[in-house]
């Protein structure tokens, strides 16, 4: 969560720094991010069965957009299938009034990441398998290259919908509104 919310600001910070300091802040962010991932139990990445299984069209189940006589969009009919309009309108709108501020910030980060990398197609993000195997043997992590088993499940499935799917997941865990737990909103 905090890695997500801090990576957002690197493009705001980097232009203020000289080349050497840019390298420092990137390296330090990377080290903290890797360590936090290990501290969380070094989870594997279930790209196909968790990320891609999350909907690409997360709509606010409470929202109904009525454009008047010409169009009425009831988001409920789209939640399980294809999209009616961009889910980001719902996501951004609901995040802006959400009482859990980490959630507001996380959705803002994901929206920004999506503005940059949302168009990445499947296959554009890949692993350097040969190099990984080479380093694995050099560091004697395994005896045989055949023992390599990627912790990324189906990375070839990863594409730019990762951001909207993750934002939808966050609403699943945090609720679209917090009226049930918090009567301020």
């Amino acid at each position, binding site marked *: *969560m*905090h890695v*997500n919310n*801090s*990576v*957002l600001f690197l493009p705001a*910070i*980097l*232009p*203020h720094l000289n*080349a*050497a300091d840019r*390298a*420092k802040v*990137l*390296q*330090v*962010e*990377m*080290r*903290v991010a*890797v*360590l*936090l991932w*290990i*501290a*969380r139990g070094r989870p*594997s990445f*279930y*790209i196909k069965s*968790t990320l891609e*299984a*999350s909907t690409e069209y997360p709509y606010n189940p409470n929202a109904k957009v009525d454009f008047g006589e010409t169009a009425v969009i009831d988001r409920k009919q789209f939640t399980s299938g294809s999209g009616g309009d961009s889910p980001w309108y719902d996501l*951004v*709108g609901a995040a*802006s009034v959400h009482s859990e501020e*980490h959630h*507001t*910030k996380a959705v*803002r980060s994901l929206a920004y990441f999506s503005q*940059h*990398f949302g168009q990445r197609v499947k296959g*554009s*993000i*890949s692993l*350097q398998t040969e*190099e990984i195997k080479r*380093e694995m043997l050099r560091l004697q992590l*395994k005896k045989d290259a055949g023992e390599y*088993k*990627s*912790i*990324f499940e189906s990375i070839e499935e*990863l594409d730019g919908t*990762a951001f909207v*799917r*993750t934002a939808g*997941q966050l609403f699943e*865990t945090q609720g679209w509104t917090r009226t049930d737990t918090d009567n301020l*909103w």
Partner: protein
Amino acid sequence: MSANQASSGAAADGKVQVSSIAKPPSRSVLAPFPGFTPASGEAARRVLDDNHKVEIKLLTYAASPADRSLPTYLCSQRFHIFFNKQGFHNHFSHHVLASLALGLPASGFDKIYEKEKKDMLDESFEYNSKPELVDPKSLSSDKKPENYGKHGGVVERIDESNWTKHLGDHAYYWPYLVFFEDYIKKHGVNAALEKFVFSEEANAKDVDSLARFVGGVLHPLIHVGYGLDFNMPAIVAEGEPISCSFRKAEHADDRLLSAGLAMSMLTENNWRRIFPTDMKDLAPVSSVGGLVASARSAAAQAVNQISQALPSSVVEQASQRLGALHLGDAEHTGASASKPYAGLSLLSILDLIGQDDELAPNAAVKASDKVKMRSGLQNAGPILLKKGYFDLWKLTEEDVKDPNEGTKEGGWMDKWEELVWLSVLTLGATSKPNRKPKHDFFL
């Protein structure tokens, strides 16, 4: 009314409260969404102002009332950056600015304020009682006042000579805040970041500023990020951070920046465990990709010069060949978030770490460990360093250049994208399949 006008009108030892934030935040330089209106900007300003209201206190010197050659004013905001003794961060301004940037209408900001007041803004919390700032020279070591160094007591003023003396001391938030506000006004934020976060002096033993900057789960960096996000265009456009910072002295942004740096100074340096002592291996390296890029650029330039003296048919032929060889594409030579100029991509490094039994789940960090970040640093940190995993992420000179202005590609964009994928995947792909997702809001 400016802070200076107010302070000059203050009676001795009296307190005067003035509005500190006269203008709405600037639009976000990162992600400006539609919906930021005059009304929402003003509503955000109003609640931020109440939170950051300047309290001006004309102070006497507790230990040496005779020495009044350096009158001291404490211009501070209302709430400490920590809202409890464990050092939990006051996120109020983040919430306001993030919602503002996402288009929250004006009516929403009072609700945020009400909620945050309930959760973390408590004026009676002892951290929020302001200390008296005194000149360090006016304090004799054997005759310090009883409330010296305590919240609401007497604390030394921070200047360039003693800024490393009170690191980690929560009572020193206020003098650090005053010091950084002043420094940023005089020298600009770039100079402040260089001097107090990145320089060799700032990273001497036990000063460890860079470690503090990302300590407390990255909060000082995030806070400074907010300051720059809502402040940067003027600085970059004018290229004169000093005058800019003066001009924007009444903006929330300056307070966020100084508060972020002050927070950094109070934060623990425990991340130092995973940074090299001299930080030399954090420096960018030369790369073959970089050399190829400059060679291509030089070749393209040479061809361009020659072409001006040649008949057009020859030029046309040459340009076709150039296109085929991508010689003109000097800005971006094919490196990407998956295929870096040098070393391994971040996701590849994670996959490699994923093959290491010493770092497997329940090895270095156990599910039963109470403070997992601490066991991560203590147990996993040394293994990561010893096996050189971090060194496999290589930043070349190309990787720290600015991206191409038109395409926004190349330069640091590739390395940033690697971090973006890591952050989205740790959030969205690590929940166990076929179960309700779980997200860690702490780490």
